[in-house]
């Protein structure tokens, strides 16, 4: 006769509320092969695990069934407990009477019956289980980091500093991501460049980091410890080993009318260009669609100018295979499209705000470029339409965020903080200017965050109106912003010179395709899913693949910085 122990957990009230635990325990004890059946309020706690250990030893159990939550959550916990008590851990199985039973049912009688059935089946499974011994397989001690923004850079440096090789893949011509374009960062107002650029340089020069810029993930094969990754190195038309980054080419390029991606269209760039002066690698790239040589065959000025002979119009995409043991996804985010064009039918834009129609209605990232020392105005606040200094600026929060009608119900988390920062940056540069903010709630949870927002209001004199903006129109050169101040109970109309829209954070372009290649789960908005929000926040449900940064959920800069420690510990 087999000797199987059944341990039924109440999970506080989670299971006990819907399943009659005492009845189930009594019924289960009658199943042939079951030596003992007991229940406890928190089976995963120390006294609970002690019960399991004690019963294994005293009753000489040959198998264990824990009826509690999902094996995903605690199978490891109970297998470890069984191991210490001398039982082969693979003789422990879990019956999921929480997610599969108590959480999804109301009828206590039927739920109890189902719980008994689930336990009976799991007992049947354990009866057929055999003791197993783990085997060891070789693993590649290299990691792949996807995305070279602040999260990816930090992940790569941490892993590299721990002595492992890192392959860092960035699809843009330079690493740095969104943060490279920011002006000053909350809550300290220190310059984004001073924090990020040294780390970019370190990444570019680190002996353990192999950087693939202007490259994308083509395909991923294999499993934890042994992934085979194919990387598409996009044609750059520049040999970055030969190129010295002297700038002869882009200063002479006659095609100068392409809107700069780095400046979010606030300035133009040439066809052969370096995304920004602090780029890593500090090498240019040719935009094939803008290049006159590619369009008409009649230019090649850069080729003539280049002393190093680094320009190659014949360059083609190359596929490279790398072997790695772990993958960290830091694919990042993009701003929600405020205008009418939307990527899918679920989303709709804000026609009423006139973004795209009025040049002086800009996004928060564009404002970052306007106030950045490396920006198109060298940090002077000048409005895009005529270069005048705006004397009245309206900042609108929650554009896209918390808006079910437009398709994004979540809070983007960072906008309250950066909007407060924007009012400060503006007031520090335009002393006689007025900064108005329309907000719904101020969400400033974080160390020194609330104090930062109060500073914007009390010391720098930002005027906060509690209400959403309904419409923005233009009359006589002014932007008429119609909103409300619900605290006064009145509509508010402001004649502004410039409007800054704090657009929602969405997962970066192509994250879904990447998730499919990596076989990762994602939520209804396209953010990548972690394995468990509390217990396994950086792991995914695919072993060996980790996530960090804003591809998981909207996050501010300090957050990935904190999480990196955990991630590094997890990789090896």
């Amino acid at each position: 006769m087999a000797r199987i122990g059944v341990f039924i957990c109440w999970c506080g009230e989670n299971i006990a509320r819907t399943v009659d635990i005492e009845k189930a325990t009594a019924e289960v004890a009658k199943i042939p092969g079951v030596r003992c059946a007991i229940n406890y309020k928190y089976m995963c706690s120390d006294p609970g695990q002690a019960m399991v250990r004690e019963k294994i030893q005293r009753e000489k159990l040959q198998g264990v069934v824990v009826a509690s939550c999902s094996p995903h959550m605690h199978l490891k916990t109970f297998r470890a407990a069984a191991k210490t008590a001398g039982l082969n851990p693979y003789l422990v199985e879990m019956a999921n009477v929480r997610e599969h039973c108590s959480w999804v049912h109301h009828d206590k009688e039927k739920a109890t019956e189902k719980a008994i059935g689930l336990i009976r089946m799991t007992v049947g499974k354990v009866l057929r289980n055999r003791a197993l011994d783990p085997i060891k397989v070789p693993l590649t001690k290299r990691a792949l980091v996807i995305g070279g923004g602040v999260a990816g850079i930090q992940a790569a440096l941490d892993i590299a500093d721990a002595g492992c090789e890192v392959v860092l893949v960035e699809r843009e011509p330079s690493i740095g991501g969104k943060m490279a374009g920011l002006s000053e960062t909350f809550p300290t107002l220190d310059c984004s460049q001073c924090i990020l650029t040294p780390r970019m340089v370190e990444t570019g020069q680190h002996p353990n980091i192999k950087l693939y810029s202007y490259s994308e993930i083509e395909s991923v094969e294999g499993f934890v410890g042994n992934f085979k990754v194919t990387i598409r190195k996009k044609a750059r038309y520049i040999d970055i080993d030969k190129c010295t980054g002297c700038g002869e080419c882009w200063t002479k390029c006659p095609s100068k009318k392409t809107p700069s991606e780095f400046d979010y269209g606030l300035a133009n760039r040439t066809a052969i260009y370096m995304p920004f002066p602090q780029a890593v690698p500090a090498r240019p790239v040719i935009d094939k669609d803008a290049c006159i040589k590619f369009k008409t065959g009649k230019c090649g000025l850069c080729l003539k100018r280049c002393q190093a002979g680094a320009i190659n119009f014949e360059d083609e995409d190359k596929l490279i295979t790398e072997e790695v043991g772990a993958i960290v996804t830091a694919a990042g985010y993009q701003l929600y499209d405020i205008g009418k064009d939307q990527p899918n039918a679920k989303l709709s834009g804000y026609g009423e705000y006139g973004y795209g129609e009025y040049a002086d209605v800009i996004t928060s990232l564009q404002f970052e470029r306007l106030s950045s020392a490396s920006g198109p105005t060298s940090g002077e606040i000048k409005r895009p339409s005529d270069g005048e200094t705006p004397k009245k600026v309206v900042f609108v929060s929650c554009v896209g965020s918390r808006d079910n009608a437009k398709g994004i119900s979540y809070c983007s988390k960072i906008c309250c903080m950066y909007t407060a920062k924007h009012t400060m940056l503006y007031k520090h540069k335009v002393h006689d200017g007025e900064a108005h903010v329309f907000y719904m709630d101020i969400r400033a949870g974080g160390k020194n965050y609330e104090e930062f927002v109060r500073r914007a209001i009390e010391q720098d004199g930002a005027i906060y109106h509690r209400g959403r903006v309904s419409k923005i129109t233009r009359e006589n050169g002014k932007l008429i912003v119609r909103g409300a101040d619900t605290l006064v109970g009145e509509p508010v109309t402001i004649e502004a010179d410039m409007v800054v829209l704090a657009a929602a954070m969405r997962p970066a372009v192509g994250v879904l395709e990447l998730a499919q290649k990596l076989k990762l789960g994602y939520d209804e908005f396209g953010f990548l899913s972690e394995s468990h929000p509390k217990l396994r926040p950086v792991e995914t449900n695919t072993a060996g693949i980790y996530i960090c940064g804003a591809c998981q959920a909207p996050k501010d800069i300090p957050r990935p910085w904190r999480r990196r420690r955990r991630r590094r510990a997890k990789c090896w």
Partner: protein
Amino acid sequence: METLEKVDSAFAGTSVEACYQCGKCTGGCPVAGLMDLMPNQLVRLVQLGRLEKAMASTAIWHCVSCQTCTTRCPQSVDCAGILDVLRQMSAEQGKAAPELRRVLVFQKAFLDNIRRNGRLNEVELIGFFKTLAFLKDFNIPLLMKDTLLAPQLMQRGKLHVIGEKVRDRAVVRRIFDRCTKPGKGA
């Protein structure tokens, strides 16, 4: 205070519970400046079941049903629909101030006019409205209001003594019957 269940059934389909008081309705309302309570405050009163206060407001009678609030609401709350219900309740229970009840008289005269002609006959509308309103409160200034404009309007061809009618008025009647049938909403 009304019970929440009662509120729920009268305001079914308006998603009144979804309102999070952002104030976008008030921001976009063309007549908010005239209102004693803002649209977002009216929605809040309904959420709290404080219908008495909402029904007694002048704001519900200033609403021109332009639907801007409903169109732009980030929570898809039918704010204009909520004000509609409030007006109807207020009219049925006689909560509105006499001078505001005139709005109701106008609306009735307007609808009767359409029901009869299938199209709006302006002279007839003015005549009916003024007579009905006068019978309610014997207000002489209202009776005389804007009468001096008539010759000018006539001169410019803006006032047609004999209005147009649609040919098939049975269709109009059927539309009205269907709309006013109990249980189908007004």
